[in-house]
C-alpha cells in the first residue's frame, strides 16, 4: 500500500493566532462595559470607527501587497489594535481623529514594516501618538466621569453619535460644561502651580487612588489581564516589570516628598498604567521575547512612563514609553539570551 508523506510532528496545534487575539478581545469586555458606564456611549462609536478603519486599512494593504485580505483579517489582530486605540482615546472623539489613528497604526506602523509579526512598533500606540500630536485639543477633552460632580451632564446615545460624526456638541452645551481634565492633567498642572498633592487630590475628578471612574476601569482591565495570565496568553514578566518600573521610583519619591509626589497608588490607577501593563506592553510582536528580556522590557516601560509623567510635558507617558522600548527590543533580546542547556555561558555555540 502507498502512503502520503507528511512533515512530522503529526499533531494538531491547540492554539491559533486568531484564538489568541479573540481571547485578548474577550478580556477587554468587562473594562469596555465599565468605560461605557463611566464615560458614556462614545466608547462604542470609537470602537466601531477604529475597527472599521483598521480592518479596511489591513484589507487594503494586504490587497496592495498581493496577499489574501481574508487571511489577514481572520487573525483578528486589526481588531485588537482598534480596541486598544478605542481605550486610549476620550469617549468623545470625532471620527476622523479615530480613523487617522487606526489607519496610521495599521498601514504605517504595521504593514509598511511587513505586516503581522514584523512591526517594530506597537500599532495602537503608534496610531495614538500620531493623533495625540496632530489633534492635541481633541485628545484632551474627557467628559466628566459618572458619579462625579457633573454626572447629570452625560450625553445621550444620539448626542454622542452626532458628536462622533460631526464633532459638534448639542445646542447650548459647551465642552467647559461637560468635560474635565484627566486626573493626570490635574495633578501635573496642580504641581506646576506649586500646589501640594493633598490639595490637588481634593479635585472632584480624583477617586480613592487615581481618578474617579478610571480606577474602576483599571480594576476590570486587571481582571481581564489576570484571566489572560492564567490562560498563559500573556506571561507575568511584562506586567510585573511595568508595575515595578513605575511603582518603585514612584514609591521612593513619594516617601521622600509626599507633598510634591503623587502616591504609587495614584500612578497605578491613573492614566493607562493597567491597560499598558496587561494589554499594550504585552503585544508579543513588538515586545521582547526571552523571559528575562520581557521583564527588562516591562521595567523600561514602567520607568519611562514615570519619568515622562514626572518631567515630561505630556500628562501620561505610556504611549511614548512603549514606543521607545519597542526600539530597544532587539538589543534587549540579544543581551538577555538564556543559557542553552549544555553550554557554560549564553554566548552561543563556542562560548
Amino acid at each position, binding site marked *: 500500500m502507498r502512503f502520503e508523506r507528511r512533515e512530522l*510532528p503529526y499533531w494538531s496545534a491547540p492554539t491559533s493566532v486568531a484564538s489568541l487575539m479573540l481571547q485578548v478581545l474577550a478580556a477587554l469586555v468587562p473594562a469596555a462595559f465599565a468605560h461605557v458606564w463611566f464615560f458614556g456611549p462614545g466608547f462604542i462609536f470609537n470602537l466601531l470607527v477604529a475597527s472599521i478603519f483598521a480592518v479596511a486599512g489591513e484589507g487594503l494593504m494586504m490587497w496592495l501587497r498581493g496577499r489574501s485580505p481574508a487571511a489577514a483579517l481572520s487573525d483578528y489582530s486589526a481588531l485588537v489594535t482598534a480596541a486598544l486605540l478605542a481605550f486610549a482615546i476620550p469617549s468623545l472623539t470625532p471620527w476622523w481623529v479615530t480613523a487617522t489613528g487606526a489607519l496610521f497604526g495599521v498601514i504605517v506602523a504595521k504593514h509598511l514594516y511587513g505586516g503581522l509579526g514584523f512591526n517594530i512598533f506597537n500599532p495602537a500606540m503608534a496610531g495614538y501618538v500620531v493623533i495625540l500630536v496632530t489633534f492635541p485639543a481633541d485628545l484632551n477633552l474627557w467628559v466628566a466621569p459618572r458619579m462625579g460632580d457633573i454626572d447629570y451632564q452625560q450625553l445621550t446615545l444620539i448626542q454622542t453619535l452626532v458628536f462622533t460624526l460631526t464633532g459638534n456638541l448639542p445646542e447650548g452645551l459647551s465642552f467647559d460644561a461637560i468635560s474635565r481634565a484627566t486626573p493626570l492633567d490635574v495633578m501635573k498642572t496642580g504641581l506646576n502651580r506649586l500646589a501640594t498633592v493633598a490639595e490637588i487630590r481634593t479635585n472632584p475628578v480624583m477617586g480613592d487612588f487615581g481618578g474617579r471612574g478610571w480606577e474602576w476601569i483599571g480594576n476590570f482591565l486587571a481582571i481581564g489581564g489576570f484571566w489572560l495570565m492564567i490562560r498563559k496568553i500573556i506571561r507575568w514578566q511584562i506586567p510585573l516589570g511595568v508595575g515595578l518600573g513605575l511603582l518603585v521610583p514612584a514609591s521612593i519619591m513619594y516617601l521622600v516628598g509626599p507633598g510634591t509626589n503623587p502616591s504609587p497608588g495614584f500612578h497605578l490607577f491613573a492614566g493607562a498604567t493597567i491597560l499598558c501593563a496587561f494589554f499594550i506592553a504585552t503585544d508579543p510582536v513588538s515586545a521582547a521575547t526571552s523571559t528575562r528580556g520581557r521583564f527588562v522590557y516591562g521595567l523600561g516601560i514602567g520607568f519611562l512612563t514615570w519619568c515622562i509623567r514626572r518631567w515630561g510635558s505630556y500628562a501620561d507617558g505610556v504611549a511614548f514609553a512603549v514606543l521607545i522600548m519597542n526600539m530597544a527590543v532587539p538589543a534587549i533580546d540579544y543581551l538577555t539570551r538564556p543559557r542553552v542547556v549544555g553550554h557554560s555561558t549564553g554566548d552561543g555555540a563556542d562560548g
Partner: protein
Amino acid sequence: MTAPTYDLGKLHGGLRLTAHKRESTAELIKDVPVPSMLVLPIEQHVGGPTRPVVRVGDHVLKGQVIAEPERELGAPVHASSSGTVVAIDQWPVSRRFGEKAPCIVIECDGKDKASSAIAIDDYSKLEPDELLLRILDGGIVGLGGAVFPTAQKLMQARTCKIDYLILNGVECEPYISCDDVLMRECAAEVLSGAQILMHALQVNVCLVAVESDKPEAILRLGQALADLDDQRIVLKQLPSVYPSGGEDQLVQLVTNREVPSRGLPTDVGCVVQNVGTAAAVHDWIVNNQPLISRITTVTGDGVDAPANIRARIGTPVADVISFAGGYTDQARHLIIGGPMTGKSVTTDEIPLVKASNCVLVVSDAPSQGDELPCIRCGDCAAVCPVRLLPQQLLWYARADDEKKLRDFCLTDCIECGCCDLVCPSRIPLTANFRKAKVHIQELADEKARADRAKRRFEARNRRLEREHQERAAELARQKSSAKAAGPAAIAEILKRKQNKDEFE
C-alpha cells in the same frame, strides 16, 4: 544498606501530551509468526559500515551472522529465521536519508531452525572487556531508536569514569508503548540485563527511570527488584513530560547533571541504555539469543487492532499491519517511529528493523490552518527543553545566516518538535531547523574543501617562492663569480645573454 538519594534535576519546558497509549496496551504482547520472506538491511546501525558474509543461494539458520561490521566496531546482523538467501539488493527502507538501501532477502523455510552458537555459563566470571566483546557479537544496538551499537557505547564508556548506569524506561513519546509492555511482562529480564551491563561497565549504581504514567510497569519492576534483592538498582519515577526520555534530558532529570553541548552522557559520568536494550543483552548473554526480534507498537487510527507485537527483524511492515487486523479506511499516513520524531514513509514494503519501536498509521491530521507569520509570542522558547530561542532561529534559518544560527546554537536542537506543537502561527519550526542543519553541514563541508584547496594553493605559492629565491641566489652567485673573473668574462656573459634574447 540504605538506598542513596539522588537529586532530581529539572527539565526546562517540555509538554504534557495526550498519551494515546491505552489503545495498544490493552492486551499482552503478541508474537507475529515467521513471515515467508525476511528483508534485512545490511546497514541497520549508526557506527561503522557492515558487509554481507553470505551469498545469494546460501542456506542460513536462525541466529547465523549474515553481515559483519567491516571494522572492529559496529554490530553484526543475524538471520532472524532459517531459509535461503534469494537476493542481496536495493530495497525500500525507512531511513532518515535516502529511500532504498542494500538488503539481504531471505526466503524462509518455515522450520525456524537455529544455529548452534556457543553459550557462556556465567557472565560474571568474564572480564568486563570479554563481556563487551560478547555483547558485540549479539548484534545488540540501542533499541530506543538511536540504534547506536551497544558494545561500542559501552567500550567508549569504559574509557571514562562512570557513576551511573541509567536504564531508560521513560518512553515519553505519544502512541509508543513497547517499552511499557516489555517492563510489564519481562521486568526480570530487564533487571537481569541491567546487572550484566553493570558488570560490563563496572558501575555500582543503576537508576531505572520510568514515567509515572506507567503504574503497572513500575509495580512489576518493583516486584522483580524485590525478588532480585539487588541494592545497587534503584527505581526512579519521573513525571510524564515529553521529551524527558531524550538521553541528555534523562541524565539531567535523574542526576541533575547537564550533558555538555556536543558531548556525551559519559562526560558527566552517565551511561544511558534503553530498557529494551537491557532485555536484549539478557536474551543474548543468558539465553544465547542474538537480536533477531523486537517488540514494536503497531497503533494509530489507521490500524484496525492496535497492539504490541514481537516480530522478527526483517518482517515487512505490511505483514505486521495485517497481523494487527489490517488497515482501517482512515489510513492515510504511515509513520515509522512516534508522531513527534518518527519518519513518514510512502510504502509498507519496508521491513521492520532494529530501530523500529513503533509503526503508526494515522488518518489525515485535523486541518491546521495556513501558516501565519511568527508573532514572537515566545511559546516555542518556553517549551524548548534545550532552552533555545526557536523564534530567533527561524528568522536566521530563513535568512540563511549561518553565523547567527551557530551563535544561537541551532546544532543543539534535539528536534523534539515541542515548538511546532505550541506555535499559534502553525509554523513547522522543526522541519525548518532540520533543513537548516543540513545546510550548515553542507557549508561546513564546503568550507573544509575550500580550506584544503587553499592549503594546496598556499603550499604551491610557497614552493614557487622558494624556487624563485633559489634561482635569484644562484643568479647572484653567478654574478659575483663573474665579477671576480673580470670585465672580459662579464662581456662574454652579456654577449651570451644578447644572443639568447635574439633567439626569443
